[in-house]
């Protein structure tokens, strides 16, 4: 079985692009299972159900969705195995863009919205820079020149990725994504490791502190000038 991890900003078209790619795999008699990880709400499971793909939803609620997805990967793999799927597709909402939920053997797919401006690729960090495939969506909404600059910026951040310009409405480019999925490696749970470490967040805020005043905070604290200290036992 192969594992595909899809990350991207909210509303970038992850689900739309995936639906077209999975339909194309369906046509080749290849089975997929989808796990959709979101924060508060999603109805994407209904959309995937329409194309006959078994889907599980995970809502991370007050936890970071990427951490939550990583922690649940093992169960997702066993569930997809039970379904006798050829592909496990994990779609995660991603929150701060500092995370990259990709593991070493998965196919890491980053979906990024071209209308978000040509500086976005420079801002989003490891979920783009460690991806295998960057899918650029909504290119039809901007000029060809802007589209070309956007593509160049994506390659500046991740020179080795395969860039696919896709359209979630028409399905353009999604067959190419399906091709990349076919080329990906077998997943091996015991050997799976994250490509990029998750961000540091060990402080009182993580356990529910809501007061802003400095004196209430413990843990690893970093000031805006870069000075960092550990406070606590």
């Amino acid at each position, binding site marked *: 079985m192969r594992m595909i991890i899809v990350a991207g900003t909210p509303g970038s078209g992850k689900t739309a692009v995936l639906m077209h790619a999975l339909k194309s795999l369906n046509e080749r008699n290849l089975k997929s299972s989808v796990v959709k990880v979101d924060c508060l709400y999603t109805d994407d499971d209904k959309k995937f159900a329409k194309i006959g793909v078994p889907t599980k939803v995970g809502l991370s609620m007050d936890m970071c969705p990427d951490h939550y997805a990583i922690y649940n990967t093992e169960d997702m793999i066993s569930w997809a195995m039970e379904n006798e799927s050829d592909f496990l597709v994990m779609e995660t909402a991603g929150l701060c863009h500092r995370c990259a939920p990709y593991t070493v053997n998965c196919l890491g797919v980053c979906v990024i919205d071209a*209308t978000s*401006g*040509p*500086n976005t690729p420079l801002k989003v960090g490891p979920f783009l820079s460690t991806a295998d495939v960057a899918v650029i969506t909504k290119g*039809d*909404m*901007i*000029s*060809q*020149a*802007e589209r*070309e*600059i956007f*593509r*160049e910026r994506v390659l500046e951040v991740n020179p080795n990725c395969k*860039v696919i*310009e896709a*359209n979630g*409405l*028409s*399905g*353009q*480019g*999604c*067959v*190419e994504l399906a091709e990349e999925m076919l080329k990906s490696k077998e997943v091996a749970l015991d050997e799976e490791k994250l490509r990029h470490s998750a961000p540091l967040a060990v402080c009182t805020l993580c356990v529910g502190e809501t007061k802003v005043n400095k004196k209430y905070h413990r843990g690893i604290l970093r000031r805006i000038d870069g000075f960092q200290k550990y406070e606590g036992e």
Partner: protein
Amino acid sequence: MIEEITIIGGYDKQGNKEPVEKVIIKKGEIFGVVGPTGSGKSSLIGDIEQLAQEDTFSKRKILVDNKEPSYEDRTNPRKKMVAQLSQNMNFLADMSVGDFLTLHAKCRGASNKCVNAVVELANTLTGEPIKNEHELTILSGGQSRALMVADVAIISNSPIVLIDEIENAGIRKHDALKALAGHGKIVMVVTHDPVLALMTDKRIVMKNGGMQNVVHTSEKEKQISEKLNKIDELMLNLRDRVRNGEILEEIEHIEI
């Protein structure tokens, strides 16, 4: 140099086969694309821009000189065979005109000297002058469109040029078309404007997402086109006078 492109028909919005199975466009030809709104004109242009290989909604296939273009040809902007002016009226990129053009010239492997040439050309097409230090996002619809035209003409200097509704932006459409449709290029113009439609050699008629027919512009239509040009010039002249605050007393009588 590209000699011809071939559009192999796919399916319309209902999934029926397109009546036109094949269109060949040769170097130096200007093709029009006409049809009601929603008839699939922009999608056709989009298919050509992407050099579609049965991988779009319409399942059309585009051949260049009778061959399937390589993946590299389809995606690398330095090798791109197609320059496209889409219907977009505004830029979304948050940067200055000068920076934007410099970056785009870099993407396309064009010289930095292009930047000033683009701004100069754009300013011949629109009313209010554009400056290098202007932010892209504050440009008016007409200024943006003029800049897009000039950018396509100079920086994206490709053998295939696709133009989507140039008449919409209140810019000088004849001058814009002249700047875009350089000598020996393959040009496609999507238009609702009979003046532009009759200026082309042939036109593809769209309906329901499919190519319905290919019409050759007849001799009679060429004559009509010249008459329409006179009306158009009159309209342009009146437009400029009204724009400049003049009060019109009467319209000059024209022979058509």
